[in-house]
């Protein structure tokens, strides 16, 4: 897959910063990714976190975007991935490192720079640009 942003290509490396895929959890056990100042479901503080970066998830849906913004790889395959945490489900959006289908198992792979922040419309200092893409799990 081409990567004109110059960002890392998703090759496997240690999870350098698992905060990039850490769900927020409130006292009642509601989970969200990303975390919010308070739980959107019940309004309680999200006092705990759950690291999703070491877990295997399932592809809910995916698309390959062929017209991407400046500094974003093209094509850019994106997936919504569901993680089962006990009897709860929490979802995350991310690019994929290869072809996926609905229902496929994937695992998070750390990427230090997901797109070129300097080419992005949004102010570079306003957010983080690292995170996790999803790699198909070999059967």
């Amino acid at each position, binding site marked *: 897959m081409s990567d004109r942003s110059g960002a890392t290509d998703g090759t496997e490396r240690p999870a350098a910063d698992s905060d990039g895929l850490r769900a927020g959890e409130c006292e009642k056990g509601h989970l*969200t*990714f*990303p975390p919010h100042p308070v739980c*959107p479901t019940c309004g309680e503080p999200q006092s705990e976190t759950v690291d999703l970066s070491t877990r295997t998830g399932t592809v*809910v*849906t*995916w*698309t*390959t*975007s*062929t*017209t*991407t*913004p*400046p*500094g*974003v*790889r093209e094509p*850019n395959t*994106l*997936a*919504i991935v569901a993680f089962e945490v006990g009897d709860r489900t929490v*979802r*995350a*959006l*991310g*690019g994929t490192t290869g072809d996926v289908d*609905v229902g496929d198992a994937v695992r998070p792979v750390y990427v230090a720079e*997901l*797109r070129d922040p300097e080419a*992005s*419309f*949004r102010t570079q200092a*306003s*957010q*983080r*640009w*690292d*995170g996790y*893409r999803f790699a198909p799990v070999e059967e």
Partner: protein
Amino acid sequence: MTVAVVGASMTDFGERDAFVGELLSEAATGCLADAGVTADDLDALYVSNMASGEFEGTTGVVNALAHDIGALPAYTQRVDQTSASGGAGIFAAWQSVASGASDLTLLVGGEKMTHLSTARSADVIASLTHPVEYAHGVTLPAFGGLAARAYLETTTDADPARVREALAAVAVKNHDNARRNPRAQFQKEIDVADVLDSPVVADPLRLYDYCPVTDGSAALLFCPESVAREYTDDYVRVAGVAGATDTHVVHERADPTWMGAVAESAERTLEMADRHIADVDVLELHDMVSLLEPLQLEALGYADRGEGWRLAADGETTLSGPLPVNPSGGLKARGHPLGATGVAQAVELYRQLRGEAGDRQVDARRGLTCNVGGFGNCVTTSVLEVGP
């Protein structure tokens, strides 16, 4: 206090040389002329605009407009609710009159976009997304692709190829309507094969599933119904207006194909209007992408979940069908100048309800607009009906 619409206008939609100030002025003066009033009669002036600062480095557009058209010293306010700014402007304009604060309010929606590349424009719009989404380079068209695959593979039980063709039929229908609308961006007939052969934008959706990038402006004039006849005998009543909000982070929704804020906003609007959805004769929906038309029809209650595509497949939403949807051509073919769109939806209903819609006229006494920001993130709806 019941509120009436007594004037409407829109500029040509498409690629325009004019920037936002000139576009807003054109629609504003057109609307005042339509109602036969002068700008110094205005108590309030609202501008619906998502991103003039981001698109062209111009802020303070409503102050500039008030000065340019001679509306001083009217109260002015800019309304931004991303792609739903126009509908939010209708809500604000209605509030200004219904509260008694204004006896005459002009609402002007407008956006200038086409001077930026499509990629840059998509990035400006994508800046409404959460940082964890934006970092991955997601765009609003990509959300359409994600939702469409879920719709085809998990929401519906039908043959995916048949559903895919029905989505194409939405675009075909809206192009067919737009060529009867002289203000629309596209005046070109297309067929299902054109859609299915067009370049992939966000698999499984293609170029002709999506609205274009558009410049344009539209305007509406509001007053208390009690004085509406001073301006026109054929005024239109704002029977209901409301809005609702869904998650900012799209993937936090349990089902990416359920437009929860559309359902909530419409329920509130119909309750205010004391009407049922079956009482609505014509719809102007937010078809930023073809899929959104069936998803809104499902959220509005016209079809069960996963079944909304059948209305397009069966031709029920054409101009001559039992439920005409987007007689103006919709976002797909009328065009989508962000802040103008929600206003233009109501301009179309104003023309339809007054019997002024020419070759695209439908038989209607009541219509509903649905204006969607983000990918269902924030929604406003209105019910307009024949006044007298």
